[in-house]
């Protein structure tokens, strides 16, 4: 069990920088998500923690030990690959026992360990089967078995559910999380699926273009995104952006949009120019008396809620409202934004500190 500290890690492939000076800490026992779109550097970061890539610069500490230039075999980690990477020429038992055999563990002990792990994962009946004929879920369990059998300091998982079909993924995600809770081992998990990250993670790092955009608890990241990228990447549908020209002073509690005053959480920073007002769809309410006006373009029925798309003077806005509200396409209506849940972004896309989000966003 281990704490992992990443300090100013950087990876260049030729002239391409995959990861730019990233730092974050993974606490002992955490289920930690590396989240981002493809090509954002999350897998490279994971591979550097694993020792499959060596960082160009920076340090990696596993349990206080600097390991950034050590080979994978000396780091006491287990890795679960997206395509499982089960050795195809061995049966399930051999696959699981392989890491133990490499440590020179006595045969009887290996057998007992493998059986114990198979029990945990419910694959005892598969032990003597070749891996070729297994279903995706069973392959995944075998891959997990191979990882947990050695009791490593931490688990590194590279989109382990990516190769499974949607229905089974849900189930496997629960199983993984339950397994983690039971073993209490530090887990670093790479995914591009924000729902998966929110659902399973204790903490999330959101990466983009090799840069850590934000790092924190799923709820904090969802409620108080540090950048427009995070606000847009997380949530489905993503955060609404209302673009307007204006300025806010430090301590302001309202902004002016098209001449109407809109309440916001009290600001700490001042900014001016092409500002962006961000608000989650569930914090947009249809209210005929509200000053901000919009025309209803579409409504998507989702069971208990519906997503209503409105056209406003500041761009399209999506509202998540109860499905019992009757909306008519083409109607004009007012939009009331929950003043407690608004984030203002500076023109470059960085969130402005306010009384509400400064607890989460520690800039500088």
């Amino acid at each position, binding site marked *: 069990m281990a704490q992992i500290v990443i300090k100013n890690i950087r990876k260049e492939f030729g002239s391409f920088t995959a990861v730019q000076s990233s730092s974050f800490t993974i606490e002992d026992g955490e289920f930690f998500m590396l989240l981002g779109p493809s090509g954002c550097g999350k897998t490279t970061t994971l591979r550097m923690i694993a020792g499959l890539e060596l960082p160009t610069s920076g340090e990696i500490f596993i349990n206080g030990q600097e390991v950034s230039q050590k080979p994978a075999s000396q780091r006491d980690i287990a890795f679960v690959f997206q395509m499982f990477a089960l*050795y195809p020429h061995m049966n399930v038992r051999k696959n699981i026992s392989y890491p133990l055999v490499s440590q020179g563990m006595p045969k009887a002990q290996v057998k007992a360990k493998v059986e114990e792990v198979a029990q945990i994962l419910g694959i005892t009946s598969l032990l003597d089967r070749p891996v070729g004929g297994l279903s995706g879920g069973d392959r995944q369990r075998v891959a997990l078995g*191979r990882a947990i059998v050695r009791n490593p300091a931490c688990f590194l998982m590279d989109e382990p559910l990516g190769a499974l079909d949607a229905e089974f993924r849900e189930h496997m995600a629960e199983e993984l999380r339950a397994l983690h809770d039971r073993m209490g081992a530090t887990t670093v998990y790479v995914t591009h699926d924000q729902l998966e990250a929110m659902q399973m993670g204790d903490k999330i790092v959101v990466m983009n273009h090799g840069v850590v955009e934000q790092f924190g608890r799923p709820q904090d990241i969802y409620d108080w995104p540090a950048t427009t990228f995070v606000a847009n990447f997380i949530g489905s549908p993503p955060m609404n952006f209302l673009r307007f020209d204006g300025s806010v002073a430090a301590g302001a509690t309202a902004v002016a949009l098209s001449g109407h005053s809109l309440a916001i959480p009290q600001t700490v920073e001042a900014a001016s120019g092409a500002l962006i007002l961000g608000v989650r769809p569930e914090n947009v309410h249809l209210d005929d008396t509200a000053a901000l006006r919009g025309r209803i373009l579409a409504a998507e029925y989702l069971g208990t809620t519906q997503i209503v798309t409105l056209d406003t003077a500041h761009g399209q806005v999506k509202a998540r409202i109860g499905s019992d509200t009757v909306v008519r396409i083409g109607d004009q209506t007012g939009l009331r934004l929950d003043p407690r849940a608004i984030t203002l972004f500076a023109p470059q896309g960085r969130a402005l500190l306010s009384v509400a989000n400064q607890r989460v966003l520690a800039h500088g």
Partner: protein
Amino acid sequence: MSFSITDPSRRQKWIAGILVVTYAIVTLLPLVWIIATGFKTPPDSIAYPPKVFFSPSLEGYVNLFTSRSRVTPEDLAALGPPATWYDAIVRQYDMVITGPSRYGERFLNSVIIGFGSTFLSVFLGTIAAYAFSRFKVPLKDDLLFFILSTRMMPPIAVAIPIFLMYRQLGLNDTHLGMILLYTAVNLSLSVWLLKGFIDEIPIEYEEAALIDGYTRFQAFYKVVLPQAATGIASTAIFCLIFAWNEYAFAVLLTSGDAQTAPPFIPTIIGTGGKDWPAVAAGATLFLVPIMVFTILLRKHLLRGITFGAVRK
């Protein structure tokens, strides 16, 4: 007529069948002819019209493996009755066996040189292909093209320089020289074929092994090699077929100690008349090892040729 990918119609099956059978006849007929000629007597072998049905004889095989010399009928009578069945065959022509022919030696040379160079080409090819497939090699594409280009020239174009080089190095007409030469020629084939096979093996297998605590070499040896077995087997067959059948280099660079069977077999004709059955017998036996080797590795060969065409 409806068309379906999965179910060929009766007519399509018939057409396919006829094509396959025709092709088989065209390719197998010369083989059948060679094998049959090996069991004919010399007069039968040159009979016109050709004899399809004949009484088989082992004369060709006896002549292939023996040196004989003609003796007068009186001397022959003085020898007494023939001791063995092959003595009896030879004496019909007023001849006696004076010793074994050189066919056995030449055949053995072919085995040593053929299998030796095949082993070496596949061994070096696997290592080189692994490096090309997995590591950042400077000028990789140029090097691969260069390796391939060594195969673009016909042997006859490079035979003279090689002959001169080999004379300096004392490698002319030696087993080592021929093994090195065939290895050099086959290496381009084996590197290219094996690189394709190794490229198909997901790198994650090795990475998993590295994390499981193995060294790079152990990962290669225990994980990559078993995966590449199919490719290695089919590459070995191709290399062996080339080295086994090679004629041009062999005829130019070997004459005695290291002469392989292909340049030797035609020389049988000259020793004692046009002995076609002996030549045919030599060619027939020469086919056997490669046939056995191919049949043994047949399953790998078929999988090897279609490897990578379909994702599992």
